């Protein structure tokens, strides 16, 4: 399969374009996605190619965007809605959580919507433009949660999200947009939900993570490798569903696990993973499961504070060293 080196952002953009060319039911909507091409230029050139009726500029109302997408989906469309920032999906909580998530259970009608959620910090976006609210939605039965880390997965998981008959929250990490490049197949392909990806192999410690933290974990693991400790980095890729088997298999092998996420700690999805390991792999453990996450605070604006807030390579390396020495 021919591949091309692309940024994470380009992979999302090309993937979405490919889906729109392929399936007339697919359309996108959001604030400034049309004429302006999207706040991050994911849909640049889309209106020219697909017309204003398939690339809808919406009013400044997330409620209207999610509710409109839900209605269109009920009528058989495949809407891909962009929240300008993931943080603002909270405005649409009711339509997403009360209506879209439960519609199929109540009435049997699928709601195949995709919400594209530019999320994450690392560029001084402050408390309204930097959050990783995935765990809030992972808690809601009926929603799927996707967090790609690589350009290849970004494209493949977007295709799977659009195909999926359920509401899918597609968290695209802003800090990866132009920073991360990788080979992306030209052809259309889908990446399955619920299958973790081994980002780095190791037999001494397991790090379970997703999104931008995959790279933080990898850099920390490289440091540990220099010290003779082989760390396995598992990229979950999707949180709902998540690959319990892969996690439990890796923990059974390494017996020491660290769960890492950029979201805040309390009630974060890492707690679910740690609890599952404790429940199902207790007799495999040679150390307590560690969690590294952001502290329970809004995301600070000041660069120095934000750096202290988001888990850094040194934080992870230090925790890994402690685990290794335990």
């Amino acid at each position, binding site marked *: 399969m021919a591949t091309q080196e692309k940024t994470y952002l380009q992979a999302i953009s090309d993937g979405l374009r490919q889906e729109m060319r392929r399936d007339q039911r697919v359309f996108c909507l959001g604030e400034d996605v049309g004429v302006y091409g999207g706040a991050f230029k994911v849909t640049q050139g889309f209106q020219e190619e697909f017309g204003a009726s398939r690339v809808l500029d919406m009013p400044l109302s997330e409620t209207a965007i999610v509710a409109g997408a839900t209605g269109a989906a009920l009528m058989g469309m495949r809407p891909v809605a962009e929240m300008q920032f993931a943080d603002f999906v909270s405005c649409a909580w009711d339509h997403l959580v009360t209506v879209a998530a439960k519609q199929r259970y109540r009435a049997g009608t699928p709601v195949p919507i995709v919400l594209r959620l530019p999320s994450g910090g690392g560029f001084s976006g402050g408390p309204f433009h930097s959050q990783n609210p995935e765990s809030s939605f992972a808690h809601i039965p009926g929603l799927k949660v996707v967090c790609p880390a690589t350009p290849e997965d970004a494209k493949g998981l977007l295709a799977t999200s659009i195909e999926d008959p359920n509401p899918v929250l597609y968290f695209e990490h802003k800090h990866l947009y132009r920073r991360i490049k990788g080979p992306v197949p030209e052809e259309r392909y889908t990446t399955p939900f619920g299958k973790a990806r081994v980002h780095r192999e190791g037999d001494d410690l397991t790090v379970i993570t997703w999104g931008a933290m995959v790279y933080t974990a990898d850099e920390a693991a490289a440091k540990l490798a220099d010290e003779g400790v082989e760390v396995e980095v598992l990229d979950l890729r999707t949180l709902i569903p998540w690959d319990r088997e892969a996690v439990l298999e890796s923990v059974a092998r390494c017996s020491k696990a660290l769960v890492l996420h950029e979201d805040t700690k309390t009630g974060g999805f890492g707690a679910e993973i740690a609890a599952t390991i404790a429940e199902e792999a207790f007799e495999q453990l*040679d150390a307590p499961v560690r969690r590294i996450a952001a502290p329970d605070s809004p995301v600070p604006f000041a660069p120095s504070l934000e750096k202290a807030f988001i888990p850094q390579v040194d934080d992870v390396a230090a925790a890994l060293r*402690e685990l290794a*020495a335990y």
Partner: protein
Amino acid sequence: MSTGTQVEVVMPQMGVSVSEGTVTRWLKQPGDAVALDETLLEISTDKVDTEIPSPGAGVLAEVRVQEGETVEVGTVLAVIAPEGSAVAEPKPEPEPSPEPTPAPAAPAAAAPQPPPVEAMPAATRLPPSPSPQAEPAGNGRTFISPVVARIAAEHGVDPGGIPGTGQGGRVTKKDILQFIETGAAAPGEAPAAQVPSPAPEPAAQTPPAAPGPVDEVPAAVAPPETAPPQEPEARPAPAQPAVAAPVAQGLAPASQVPDEQPLATGESAEPMNAMRRGIAEHMRRSLDTSAHVTSAIEVDMSRVVATRDRLKKEYQSSYGVNPTYLAFVTKAAVETLKDWPWVNGEIRGEKIVTRPYVNVGVAVSLEDGKGLIVPVIKNAQDLNLLGVARSIADIAERARTKKLMPDDVQGGTFTITNPGGYGTFHGTPIISQPQAAILGTYALVKRPWVVQDELGQDVIAIRPLMNLTLTYDHRLVDGAYAGSFLRDLKTRLEGWDEG
């Protein structure tokens, strides 16, 4: 009960890896007046025995831990009340407090003698130090993780008999897997607990390269290096329950003889103290770890004897130090180690560790003949003969008067044991882990010896002879290497020309 001025006496932290201590003797009884810093009691830990001075003046109001009991660091041992206070009368029925009061967060703060932070050579501080602490893991004081417990159960292995490399000497999954892989334990049997130490068990023991009989001299009992002092802040809740003495005794370490067997007529039993438990565990573990081989060499000590006779008076009158034969041998051995660094080295994981310095441990037996301790002379390579002699005298004195600090017995890189004082002429001591070798020095005896006279003719002369043995870890040190070391040591002693 608190008057606000009472002072609690707590079990001090006698070193980073020491988690408990045993009260061996109360020197004061409830109701006795005590002065500040007056010795209140004696305690015994894995590493050292020491005296505990009173942290306050007044009256010993209450003794909470009786002689023979083992309690955790930080446990309140006694309460000192101000003189004339109401609590001076010892209660006839002391409050039953079988469980030691859990320590407040920082017991060390109350400890009368916090061990000084010692400038240890960097090499001994590396985090993944393979040297576990002396604490036997098998008596329940060290946390056994779920995976280690499961593997132990599956293989019928007692984790207490396995050297641990984890935090605080904890047995990690890797430790137990390695233990099983190297065939140290056969499936289905509970090895460590039942293997009588000297018996060549056909079942599963790793055969030493030269399986000599186990030596009668348990020479090197240096409590090995403590675990790295780094204490991760996010340490999980301590898994060690507060173990009261009876419990601790019940959960015997692996190497202890099972005590189910009742006493026969005429037999008597006494509890093992912490030192004996430590020795037992360390001896067994050392034999399980290293491939012990002993080589011996005879040394004509004529020149050393002559030098010593010459120096003796000067050293004693000027410095108050006796230049013992042990000092000569130690000095010569330290110099010789420079040329044969592996004898002063260590197998650490997959690596061979050597160092440019010699921290020489010298085995000192205690006065009652029960137990011994191996204080360490740090950087012995920097000392001349007088310095070596003085250091040996100092540590021996402090060992016998229980004035050693935990750091005095740590960090050894090579050990010398001297059972020759009893007239023995040969032995096969056991290596102090994780070192690579131990030198034995034996009785200096006059023997007929073939020498050459001035015409080159062989004649028999009377010469003072001393046997030296080097017991080495054959995994690291080959026979030729050990022999070369002994040859050079012999040459150095026979050609002694200093002073």
